[in-house]
């Protein structure tokens, strides 16, 4: 089984499910799973390998996260790195967003606060608050996100990992993601 191959078993029970339906057919389903269920989702485990890399850092290592030098092959599976130092969830700033191989979207969001995603405000608020929960709990969070927003359909698994700096404050989160289906443009996003 190659590193890129994923297996979605579909037999895992979420601990929480949220389904939000907006206007114009937009929807977002979030299923939250126990992180211990991660191996049940991922066959060849790029996300799991990132999780183990994070665990080995013990998060007590200041600025220890350096996937680019340590496991560069996994860098494409880090969908988002964000600065979570602000209290306001919408002031969370995207440091780096990877490029979607299906649509080319992603890098245009680098350096922007979540507040700037006005057409994706539901998703932006949801991300901001989930990152904040990860920051407060200092624990990873695992979600399956199925959404259709502004004509873009996505279905992916997301593992949110906190990173702390010297002094213990969580300052960044890293989202390890893997697509469960190819992203698809069904309309014309703004």
């Amino acid at each position, binding site marked *: 089984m190659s590193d890129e191959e994923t297996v979605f078993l579909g037999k895992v029970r979420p601990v929480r*499910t949220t389904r939000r339906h907006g*206007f114009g057919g937009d929807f977002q389903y979030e299923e939250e799973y126990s992180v211990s269920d991660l191996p049940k989702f991922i066959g060849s485990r790029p996300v799991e390998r990132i999780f183990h890399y994070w665990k080995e850092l013990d998060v007590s290592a200041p600025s220890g996260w350096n996937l680019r030098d340590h496991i560069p092959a996994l860098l494409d599976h880090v969908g988002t790195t964000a600065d979570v130092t602000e209290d306001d969830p919408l002031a969370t700033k995207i440091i780096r967003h990877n490029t979607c191989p299906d649509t080319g979207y992603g890098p245009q969001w680098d350096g922007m606060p979540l507040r700037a995603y006005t057409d994706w405000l539901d998703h932006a608020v949801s991300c901001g608050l989930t990152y904040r929960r990860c920051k407060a709990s200092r624990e990873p969070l695992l979600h399956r996100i199925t959404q259709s927003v502004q004509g873009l359909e996505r279905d992916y698994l997301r593992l949110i990992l906190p990173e702390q700096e010297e002094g213990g404050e969580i300052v960044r989160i890293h989202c390890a993601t893997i697509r469960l289906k190819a992203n698809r443009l069904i309309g014309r996003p703004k």
Partner: protein
Amino acid sequence: MRLGLHHRQANNFSTSARREEEVRFSLDINVAFGQESMTELGRLFHIWQRSGRSVGGARYWKDLQQNGGMALEGWLYASLIDVALDDPYNFFVTRHARRGVFPNYERRFLREIKSDMNLDSIAMEYTLAKERAAPQYDEIHQWSGNDSRHYARAIFPFCDVAGKVKYLLFATRPITDVVPLNSSLQVPVLLR
């Protein structure tokens, strides 16, 4: 908006695992309030419409006070949230509805809400309403622990003199009573 065309068993999930689920539909406020004219939500909408000048989709809190204010004492389902602080978990419940599932949250911060799902859900909705600075109307179905709830909710933003949203005035209307998940009742699910 179609109601009751689809039914699901309220007890179709094992009670051995705690169920935490929410389904929310956002509806167009003009359509929604056409159907709410006889309810507290409709009355609140009219008060908000008459309350004064607009700042985007929000109204000035000061104008509401000058236009006769709003005595909340007689309202059963209306609540007032102070959302001035940046952190949604520090939003403050200034007044809470007299009826409903959590009547004991008056004069408390959101972070004191014990149910994680409810805390995250309302923190998200209040943050959205504050950011959009526009009224919103949602129909919400929740299953939490051993109970399910199905209700409509309208949120109206009010801003301070600087134009920053400071208060959210909102009301809910139960569509069904709280239903224990081990009940044999069938709970209607809204379909669009």
